[in-house]
């Protein structure tokens, strides 16, 4: 655990709100970045940050000091964001049709764009579509693996999923990303 976190945490655990305030002020921005990437909008991300700190406060006695405090906090935030995603989209079936042709059919053009900016914009647009078609579980697992660099074991712990389910979620998400990006980037699968 970071030394400075240890001091603040000791205070917080002793019931001193000043200690918890230090932790909140120190970790809020990182938690917002994680929450924003998972939820995709500022308002939801703000709510996730609040809920994550509230849960962390209530579970301070459960924190194991062998782990980094920031990692523990991130797992709680990821779980909050996942809960929110599940509420936002109760969709159990896989809505994304298999095959690159189906993905490409969503877009007006599959020709490689000459301008890199146009290509970048198209990639963003396609990725946005891929993310919107992911289930809550896939999206959460992908964001945590790809952007946050968490291991599959850590993601499983954060989202309370079995390792095999976590791994499959990441893989399904990557398949969807590749399906939509391949035509724009000239990457045949």
């Amino acid at each position: 655990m970071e030394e400075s976190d240890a001091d603040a945490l000791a205070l917080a655990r002793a019931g001193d709100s000043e200690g918890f305030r230090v932790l909140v002020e120190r970790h809020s921005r990182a938690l917002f970045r994680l929450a924003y990437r998972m939820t995709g909008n500022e308002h939801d991300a703000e709510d996730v940050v609040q809920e994550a700190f509230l849960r962390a406060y209530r579970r301070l006695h459960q924190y194991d000091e062998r782990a980094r405090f920031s990692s523990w906090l991130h797992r709680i935030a990821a779980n909050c964001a996942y809960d929110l995603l599940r509420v936002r989209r109760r969709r159990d079936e896989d809505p994304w049709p298999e095959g690159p042709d189906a993905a490409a059919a969503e877009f007006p053009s599959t020709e490689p764009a000459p301008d890199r900016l146009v290509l970048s914009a198209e990639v963003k647009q396609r990725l946005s579509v891929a993310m919107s078609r992911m289930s809550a579980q896939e999206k959460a697992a992908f964001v945590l693996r790809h952007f946050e660099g968490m291991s599959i074991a850590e993601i499983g712990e954060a989202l309370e999923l079995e390792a095999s389910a976590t791994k499959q979620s990441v893989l399904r998400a990557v398949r969807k990303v590749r399906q939509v990006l391949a035509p724009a980037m000239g990457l045949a699968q």
Partner: protein
Amino acid sequence: MTGDAGRHPSADDLVLYHYGEADDRELLEAHLGGCAACRAELGRVRVALAAVPSDEPPDRGADYGARVWERLQPRLDVPGAARPRRPFALRRVLLPVALAASLVLAFLLGRHYPRPGGEATSGPVRERILLVAVGDHLERSQVVLLELLNADPKATLDVSAEQRSAEDLLSANRLYRLAAARTGEPGVARVLEELERVLVEVANGPSELGPEETLALRRRIESQGVLFKVRVVGSQIRERQREAAQGPRKIEL
């Protein structure tokens, strides 16, 4: 990829390899070393994933943490929000139990084995000490009951902190109930018995309560009027402490 360097890995295997999560990394690397097609496929995986934009979320500003705290702090103070455990919690919790045990033991020993000569160190003094201890015990019990009664019934509630408090109070409660019954305080003993049932339920129940369970527990506490009775006995005890010098008075409920 399953233990055969000659077999082509699947796209999923290559994705896991890219993320450093492949189960049989060495075997896969051995295959990639000799297979141009799989190296090309791995290249496509890497290009696609590298293209995933890593746009930074909107910056919240340097004072963001302070704003989060401003919004969060009132929620930490609401009744029902579990308080963090203090590092000296064990000592804080064991102290009442140890005190209860020693008081009850001293009280009972004093009753059964009076000092030679029959000095008046016994009755009134011991009773007064016991009253103070029971009064403190009832106040701590009130805190636990209030936290449960004031919890947000719409949310899943983590009651692990209250549960531990209930477990600790339970040990002391049994000793005080025994002492109250033996010293001719049936009113106190009866309330402690009712309190004990609630404490047992909290201590042995789940550490997380869903909305329905929270409401059910709340209804049971309210229907039995336990909190009210604990308050009444607590205030009568305080009153008796003030009147202790003027002579004994039993508590009736």
